[in-house]
């Protein structure tokens, strides 16, 4: 067979089809198809020259699979053993990236060598993560809920961003992992908890959820300047945060309150307005 150095127009047209198909596989929340998973596991073992055991388990989440492995081994369920069990798992549908490429090579380009991967490809389409052993196979259901933003980052402000059928959950806002309390009960956070958070991204989310105005008040932030902005119809106060950084707290005529971040060195509300306007000094002659 001669070397292929260019795709045909028909092959080229199928690239976005495979891309979208595999993105859907990677984000699937469907339960495991057990019989199909067994079938493709046998193919995966055979492709590696191994005999597939006939003992199968099906669990709800990666953590459940790790606990099961540790238990079957009769090991102490400590962190090290659980992490080893996690590292023994195959990520299946979460490895959609490279599997999409091989399926395209197999089905569209006709590279027969890729038939060796039919087992792994089939498992990605039919179950969640899975674990191959010499004496059993542990399959998992996929997650049952997945919430992301437009940039595919995990994001949910009203519940877990990822949830499995046994309740195991991952909480995240703007792609940053946080805890349940930050998402579901931010009003119960305390200034002490916020200040003790060492991860700056998490701390920023905590303050946003808690409310900047409340945070500045309860943390006894220093008020540097304040004014009634008669042109804008707003009340403004410039604060120096105890964690560093400056904030201009603006109360609109509607009652809404904004806390706008500023660079250090701003000393007055008027300077803050100039800085927020991109450094341009302008004269407001009226407002709509």
């Amino acid at each position, binding site marked *: 067979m*001669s070397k*292929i150095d*260019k795709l045909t127009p028909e092959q080229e047209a199928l*690239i976005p089809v*495979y*891309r979208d198909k*595999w*993105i859907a596989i*990677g*984000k699937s929340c469907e339960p495991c198809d057990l019989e199909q998973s067994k079938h493709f596991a046998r193919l*995966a*073992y055979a*492709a*590696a020259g191994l005999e597939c055991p006939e003992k*199968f*388990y*099906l*669990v709800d989440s*990666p*953590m459940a699979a*790790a*606990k*099961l492995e540790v*238990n*079957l081994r009769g090991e102490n*369920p400590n*962190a090290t053993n*659980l992490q080893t069990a*996690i590292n023994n*798992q*195959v*990520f299946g*549908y*979460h*490895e*959609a*990236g*490279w599997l*999409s*490429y091989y399926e*395209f090579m197999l089905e569209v*380009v006709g*590279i027969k060598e*890729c038939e*060796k*991967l039919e087992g*792994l490809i089939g498992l990605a389409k039919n179950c969640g993560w899975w*674990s*191959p*052993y*010499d*004496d*059993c196979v542990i399959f998992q259901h996929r997650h049952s809920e997945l919430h992301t933003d437009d940039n*595919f*980052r*995990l994001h949910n402000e009203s519940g877990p*961003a990822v949830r499995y059928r046994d309740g195991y959950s991952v909480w*995240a806002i703007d*792609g940053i*992992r946080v805890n349940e309390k930050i998402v579901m009960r931010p009003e119960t956070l305390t200034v002490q908890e916020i200040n003790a958070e060492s991860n700056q991204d998490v701390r920023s989310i905590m303050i946003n959820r808690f409310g900047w105005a409340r945070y500045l008040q309860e943390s006894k932030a220093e008020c540097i300047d304040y004014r009634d902005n008669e042109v804008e119809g707003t009340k403004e106060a410039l604060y120096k945060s105890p964690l560093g950084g400056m904030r201009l707290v603006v109360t609109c005529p509607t009652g809404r309150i904004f806390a706008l971040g500023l660079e250090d060195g701003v000393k007055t509300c008027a300077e803050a307005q100039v800085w927020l306007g991109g450094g341009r000094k302008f004269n407001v002659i009226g407002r709509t």
Partner: protein
Amino acid sequence: MKSLRNKIFACRYDVHRVNLDDETIHHIELNTTHKVWDACDPTHEEVFFNILDDCWKEPLDNHNYQDIITASV
């Protein structure tokens, strides 16, 4: 109970390079692997590291495996 993860994975390496030139491979990779990766990997990564972190939070002496043991199929 021996993990066969690495052996199962071994068959993936370079099976595609037999009949394609590098430029075509790169073109397909950019438009399949990379695009799908961008969409799906943030979830994979955050779930993975969340679980690793949670391994350290699990109580060591209060595991009830009954619900898991019944998962044998």
